[in-house]
């Protein structure tokens, strides 16, 4: 059976190659950072929690001391790219499409045919595993077709991962912060505070506090999934559903979407807001968030109205 462990080895191998190439390029900070991350992928499942924690501290130490720098491996010039682009034409899009097509078509094929009974993939992990398989296929196809120097994909990958830098592991680090917050009971404290902030007797204001709590708590955690159980238990279910008799399906579904508006507004949602700014090489780390404010705020207001109208006015 193919499990996540296989993917971790694959990713570990990629990070190891980037570490070795960084070392050859005399960028010891980058080499240490990608090397330790590679170690985490290869050995993480066999190390103690404390050892994994020390790896985390080492990664943060290197990044915090400014040990990670952009690299600039040899690549084609803008001029050469223009020439190649017109020579190769729109066929260039095909290798890029192999990955999503493999992930999506593979998932559908696996789940809706008897293939799922073969137990080839670890349960509920098939999409990401198929993503990994898609990457390997696309890489082989592009190598065979374009015949670049053997090290070219590794060096091009290093150029991109170094331009992302520490932001590459920020989403994973924030997930770890979420786990520590949960352990420390931060969710229950916030739920209690939000519950005590409710004005007496007004359905509409209760809806507003619920939606605001979802958005703000999501901004803190970077993830509506952490906010939802807390806000539902503090306000959504006891007050909106049980005291005021609202429609639970609307309160649940749209409450979550009010949280998604918060996701658009926070650097804590790193993989949506900070990583793309790094990927697009923007100067302002918060440029993506700035473009999202004008959408998120009015959309949050829409969500309040939808909950109020859908769960109360139409339902009763």
């Amino acid at each position, binding site marked *: 059976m193919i499990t*996540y462990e296989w993917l*971790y080895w694959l990713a570990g191998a990629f990070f190891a190659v980037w570490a070795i190439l960084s070392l050859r390029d005399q960028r010891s900070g980058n080499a240490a950072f990608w090397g330790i991350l590679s170690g*985490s*992928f290869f050995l993480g499942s066999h190390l103690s*929690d404390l050892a994994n924690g020390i*790896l985390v501290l080492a990664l943060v130490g290197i990044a915090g001391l400014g040990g990670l720098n952009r690299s600039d491996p040899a690549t084609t010039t803008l001029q050469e*790219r223009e020439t*190649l*682009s*017109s020579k190769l*034409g729109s066929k*260039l899009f095909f*290798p*890029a499409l192999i990955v999503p097509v493999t*992930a*999506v078509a593979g998932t559908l094929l696996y789940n809706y045919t008897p293939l799922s009974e073969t137990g080839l993939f670890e349960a509920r992990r098939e999409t*990401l595993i198929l993503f990994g398989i898609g990457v390997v296929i696309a890489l082989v196809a592009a190598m065979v077709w*374009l015949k*670049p120097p053997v090290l070219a994909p590794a*060096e*091009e*990958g290093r*150029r991109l991962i170094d331009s992302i830098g*520490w*932001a*590459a*592991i*920020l989403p994973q*680090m924030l*997930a*770890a*912060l979420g*786990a*520590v*917050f949960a352990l420390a*009971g931060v969710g229950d404290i916030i739920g*209690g505070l939000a519950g005590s902030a409710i004005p007496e007797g007004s359905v509409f204001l209760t809806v507003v506090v619920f939606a605001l709590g979802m958005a703000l708590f999501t901004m803190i955690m970077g993830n*509506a999934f952490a906010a*939802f159980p807390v806000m*539902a*238990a503090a306000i959504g*279910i006891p007050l909106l559903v049980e005291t005021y008799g609202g429609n*639970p*399906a609307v309160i*649940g*579904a*749209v409450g979550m*979407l009010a949280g998604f508006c918060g*996701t658009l507004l926070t650097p804590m949602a790193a*993989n949506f807001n900070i990583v*793309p*700014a790094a*990927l697009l090489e*923007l100067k302002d780390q918060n*440029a993506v968030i*700035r473009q*999202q404010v004008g959408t998120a705020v009015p*959309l949050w207001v*829409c969500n309040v109205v*939808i909950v109020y109208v859908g769960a109360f006015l139409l339902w009763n």
Partner: protein
Amino acid sequence: MNYWPLLGIALVVIGFALRFNPLLVVVTAAVATGLLAGFDFVAVVEALGKAFNDNRYISVTWIILPVIGLLERHGLQQRARALIESVRGATMGKLLTIYLLFRQITAALGMKDIGGHPQAVRPLVAPMAEAAAEKSHGKLDEGDREKVLAMSAATDNVGLFFGEDIFFAIASILLIQGVFESSGYPLTPLELSVWAIPTAICAFFIHSWRIRALDRRLGRVRP
């Protein structure tokens, strides 16, 4: 109740605002929160290590970079730009609105892996949007160029977030269902996912209006 762990949140906000290295901010906040809740240092490092290890799947997606880098080396971004330049009447407004709709619809059908920042926005959508904007407004200055690229990334996010919940077999719908079921309110995923539709429609109108507004603003001649 012990409110001290909330100081960890304050540390995160202050750290991000003062632009310290985010990894450093996050780990400092985690350690502070754990200590304030009464755990010892080793226990906090262990919790951090376990959670980091359990969430490795999040960082696996970077294995796409060699493919994207290799194609960029052979002119993928230039190809994306050329394609837009060859389409008559292509504007940034139209292009990003179509991408928004495409992203919402495919996400609503459960195909949330079509699109995304490393595999679609950087190599294709952002260069296409930039090319379209330059086609209608001429060469962009650095500030406007950043706005166009950032809006491309924002469009991917909005499309994904406010499309995916219409698909009933998605993690967030299952989470809502689980939370309500454990409180004695059994709901079907379909009951929940239809209620994602009104917000999806609002998201489309609000965000496409903002895309067009940015396109119009780029065209305005500055003094």
